[in-house]
């Protein structure tokens, strides 16, 4: 059986900090959560694109909120910031800016975990 996903790294500075701060030092738990996120991100990309295409900002906002929560827990601060921005833009009804932020987020999540 093969897997589509690379194993998420626990060696990046962000991951190390997240393991210490958010996972009580439990590297295995972090790894298990990161693997489950990698699988779910693929679904999130599809769902987010559909919501973006439909201009469904409330649904896009909910997705961005969820992604931001997962990304901060994983220690991916830069992408967390993009998700938070997208959440704010969607809340403000700014579809144009939200689509631009979504493109950044989508590109990163579609190739998750980062090499």
């Amino acid at each position: 059986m093969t897997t589509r996903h690379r194993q998420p790294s626990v060696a990046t500075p962000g991951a190390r900090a997240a393991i210490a701060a958010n996972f009580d030092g439990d590297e295995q738990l972090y790894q298990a959560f990161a693997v489950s996120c990698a699988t779910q991100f693929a679904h999130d990309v599809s769902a987010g694109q559909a919501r973006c295409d439909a201009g469904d900002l409330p649904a896009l906002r909910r997705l961005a909120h969820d992604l931001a929560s997962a990304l901060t827990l994983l220690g991916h601060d830069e992408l967390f910031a993009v998700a938070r921005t997208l959440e704010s833009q969607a809340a403000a009804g700014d579809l144009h800016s939200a689509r631009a932020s979504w493109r950044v987020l989508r590109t990163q999540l579609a190739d998750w975990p980062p090499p």
Partner: protein
Amino acid sequence: MSEDCTTLEAARLLGMSVRSVQLMVDRGELVAWKTPGGHRRIARASLEHLRATVGKTSLPPRAAGPKTTTKPQRPRVLLIDDSIHFQKLVSLLMRQHFPDVELHIADDGIAGLALYGQLQPQVLIVDILLPGIDGATLITSLRSHAQFAHSRLVVVTSLDEAQRAPYAFALDQLPVVHKPRLVTELPGLLTQWLPARSLEQGDAVAP
């Protein structure tokens, strides 16, 4: 087929009593209207939604008949959260810290209320932002029922304290876990409420 059904039909479809369905209608958990004579008519689509969402959870099979041995019922925890990411994280935590506890999951407030009635869990973990009925409304509704006195409730949220302010009315005297602190705070809270044997068994080495 009619787009609406009677309370009796709904009760049969959901496997509940007529009274339970009536209460669900009155609480707004099922989309319904009343005839001039006061009879409830329930939208079939709302029933299907409820059945579909409840069907996603892992309900234990009902006993088919009398048992010859009595097995102590496992403690139950119900998580109501639409985030798949956090559903998985809570599942991982429960497996790690409370392997003897049954975790049930509902991903919206309506399904959560229905499951709560069926399961009567010892602990309820509820997110604030939920599709359908939001968590704050759900919590207020639950706390108004006498049967809820038997359950402990933990609120989980990604909202910071300022963002939680609009929901303060529902969060009074409840433990609130900020999601980034879930791993470090949730197991400790649950340890206070779930039977100690769960922890003891969780520490045991599997044969």
